[in-house]
């Protein structure tokens, strides 16, 4: 079930109303049932995959707590991790790895038949797999008690607001919340609804409108001029941000309406002054996951310089692969890793350079340069991320600044009349974010007289309704 569907508009109020009417004993059962219904709206049979991973990690958690021998404990953890990852591998990466292997063998003259499993990727598989894995590792490390109540554990993995696209929660933050009583708090409910409205604005008004342009151009960039390719790439930077952070806003808001707190996933990442900062503000639940469960166990930065660089590149490559079974994603991850490595290696040199120009750390000009550089670097990396193939990405890179034709801006799906709406929506987003960084907009609006406040809310909702795109576009991150 998509958040931006009529089905969800009926589902969510019904689930919320019944949730608050039930006694504590039945609430978690109700959330689990609702989450199953939510997930089965995509492909019902795929619930079995979830059941398998949930069972594996539920049992593993209990045994991990029981077993005292560290060696056995470690073996148990790895068995659990590998079993969970096997599901991910079969559904998501089998075709990719066999295809790559056969391709590589072909280079050496071995022409092997390519085994293919043509199955649809279960929605949100990477998300709930990672959430399950974090539970197993945390139990292994002794930082989380094993959950004995199967219903509670299953709800932790399947909690519908964040089931298919995160935030990827940690058991320490979410699991205990299913045992707590969530009273109906007007502030939670109204704040949650406002957060959802903001998420819908990002998704429906910005991301889905820009997607019309981006999809047209990136489906065959060779058919478009340099200006269109450049615009599509710029649009994609906003599309992916608004799509994914919009989803997170809706997820966090929906959970808040039910009285749950999910972790923040985005903190205005395009305002970052460095790539390192960008990754502290972009998809925080995933980047911290990789930090805690891949980068740090590899040794992090407490190793030799060479090993540290390798750790960074490896972590980012795996992170790229997590996003999709395609070399473009691996390259995107690697590129970000290279950005980080280069950033760290040249830090002193850059400081000296800025110093020689009289641009000290807190000067506005220096910040503007750093912000622009970070945005451009991220923007360039999105080309690799969005392109269908490395060949397409190379084409886009080489045609960004060539053959600009201002007579041909529109595409088949995105007519010129949509451009002012898209531009105004992006501007509104930036103003909203800037305002929110200066003052808390919700509390500012909350102090207004009720008539003005309601007029503002109603105008906002009506604007989302009137300027939204409702072509039932999936959230980009659903595929990951």
């Amino acid at each position, binding site marked *: 079930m998509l958040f931006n569907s009529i089905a969800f508009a009926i589902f969510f109020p019904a689930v919320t109303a019944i949730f608050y009417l039930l*006694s*504590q004993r039945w609430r978690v059962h109700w959330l689990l049932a609702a989450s199953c219904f939510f997930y089965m709206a995509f492909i019902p049979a795929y619930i079995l995959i979830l059941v398998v991973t949930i069972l594996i990690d539920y049992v593993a958690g209990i045994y991990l707590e029981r077993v005292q021998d560290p060696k056995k404990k470690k073996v148990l953890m790895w068995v659990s991790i590998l079993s969970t990852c096997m599901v991910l591998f079969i559904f998501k990466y089998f075709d990719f790895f066999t295809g790559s292997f056969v391709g590589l063998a072909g280079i050496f003259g071995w022409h092997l038949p390519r085994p293919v499993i043509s199955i649809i990727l279960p929605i949100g598989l990477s998300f709930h797999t990672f959430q399950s894995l974090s539970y197993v590792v945390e139990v292994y490390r002794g930082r989380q008690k094993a959950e004995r109540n199967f219903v509670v554990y299953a709800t932790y993995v399947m909690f519908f607001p964040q089931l298919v696209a995160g935030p990827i929660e940690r058991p320490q933050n979410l699991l*205990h*919340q299913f045992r*707590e*009583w*969530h*009273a*109906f708090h*007007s502030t939670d*409910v*109204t704040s949650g*609804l406002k957060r959802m409205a903001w998420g819908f604005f990002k998704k429906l008004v910005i991301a889905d409108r820009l997607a*019309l342009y981006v999809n047209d151009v990136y489906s065959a960039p060779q*058919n478009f001029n340099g200006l269109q390719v450049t615009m599509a790439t710029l649009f994609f930077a906003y599309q992916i941000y608004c799509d994914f952070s919009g989803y997170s806003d809706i997820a966090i808001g929906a959970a808040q309406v039910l009285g749950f*707190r999910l972790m923040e996933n985005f903190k205005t990442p395009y305002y970052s002054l460095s790539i390192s900062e960008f990754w502290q503000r972009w998809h925080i639940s995933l980047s911290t996951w990789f930090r805690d469960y891949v980068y740090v166990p590899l040794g992090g930065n407490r190793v030799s310089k060479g090993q540290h660089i390798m750790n960074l590149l490896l972590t980012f490559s795996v992170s790229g692969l997590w996003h999709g079974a395609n070399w473009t994603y691996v390259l995107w991850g690697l590129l970000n890793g290279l950005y980080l490595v280069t950033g760290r290696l040249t830090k002193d040199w850059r400081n000296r350079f800025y110093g020689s120009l009289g641009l000290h750390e807190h000067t506005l000009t220096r910040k503007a340069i750093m912000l622009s550089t970070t945005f451009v670097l991220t923007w360039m990396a999105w080309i690799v991320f969005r392109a269908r193939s490395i060949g397409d990405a190379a084409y886009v890179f080489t045609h960004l600044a060539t053959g600009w034709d201002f007579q041909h801006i529109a595409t088949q*799906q995105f*007519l010129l*009349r*949509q451009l002012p*709406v898209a531009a105004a929506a992006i501007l509104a987003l930036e103003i909203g974010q800037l305002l929110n960084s200066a003052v808390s907009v919700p509390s500012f609006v909350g102090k207004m007289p009720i008539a003005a406040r*309601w007029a503002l*809310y*109603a105008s906002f*909702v*009506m604007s989302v*309704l*009137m300027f*939204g*795109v*409702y*072509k039932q576009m999936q959230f980009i991150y659903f595929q990951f």
Partner: protein
Amino acid sequence: MRKEGSFDRVFSQNASTVSAELPSLDSEEEKSITEEKAAVMAEQWKTLQRIGCFFGILVVLAFVMNAIITSGLRRIKTSAFGASNQIMNGKVNAEIVVTGSSRALAHYDPRTIEQITGRTAFNLGRNGAQTDMQVAFLKAYLAYNRKPKVVVHNLDAFTFVTTREVYDPAKYAPYLYDRSLYNALREIDPNIWRSRYVPLYGYVVEDMNFSWILGLKGFWGWSPREDCFLGFNPRSKKWTDDFRHLKANNPGGVRFEIEAAGIEVMEDLIRVCQQNGIELIFVYSPEYIEMQALTKNRADIFEHFHELAERFDVPLWDYSSWKYAGNQDFFQNSQHLNATGAAVFSDDVANHLTAYFAAQSNAAGLRRFPAQGP
């Protein structure tokens, strides 16, 4: 996160759960707890009422906006909406009516036809409409206007392909009260009821062109620039790359389906005209010559056109070999003439009609007028 056992938690629980968990209290404490509990519940109820009220206002707003937009679009006097309004308000009443797809819309200039034939004319061509939608629109026309003497129905290579989805549905949204139009749309899209009954659905969910803004402007008396002359929408464009892409993407040529349902719709069109005593003429308007070669089953399609024409005694004028069919200066793409091409073609077809009417009056009963090469 709120802690278990807090007042907040206790007061918000169901009464049965609360009473089971509370230790015994003296009457003063009990009274105070009951009062606080009542206050919290009152606050919660107030919140629910507010949320309900807010969403209620939104629903009312949506209905009001929908009514304003529909009314505004129906007031527009120019452009495609203006043409549709004239039709649905019964203000056309032309003697010659042209029906068809976007090819009809862009090829037949009723002003030229009126000037040359001396009879009033109107173009009912619709962008993205297949024959099923074209017939539905003709029926709507007939319901509100005097019956025309002649219907010139423009044929396309895709005439026998039925509509898969409603193209530009907002163009129909203000007129869904018309039963035949609504039923035809429902055949294509069973969810069209949403556009009729769910406020704003037809304008914001189904439409990507912000027609609702036109509606709001129309409500205050504003009409867009006229680009629809008696229903005719000329395309002032030069030859585009569309055909080159089409050819590159289909090196083996293209085929258009001949669906049984498509043939039935054509028969329905003929039946409607015959029942209303309207003379029907089939015209295959010019198509770029290279496209004709690219269409692999063109002979089959034309065989069906001829079979229908002969079976129902309908004249068929084929402009495939039009004098400028190979000249890109007269086309926008393989299917559509540009404004220059449309002007020349309208002139040709109007002269053809004049000659046809003259022949008819000279020799009553002469139905088979020789297909005239351009």
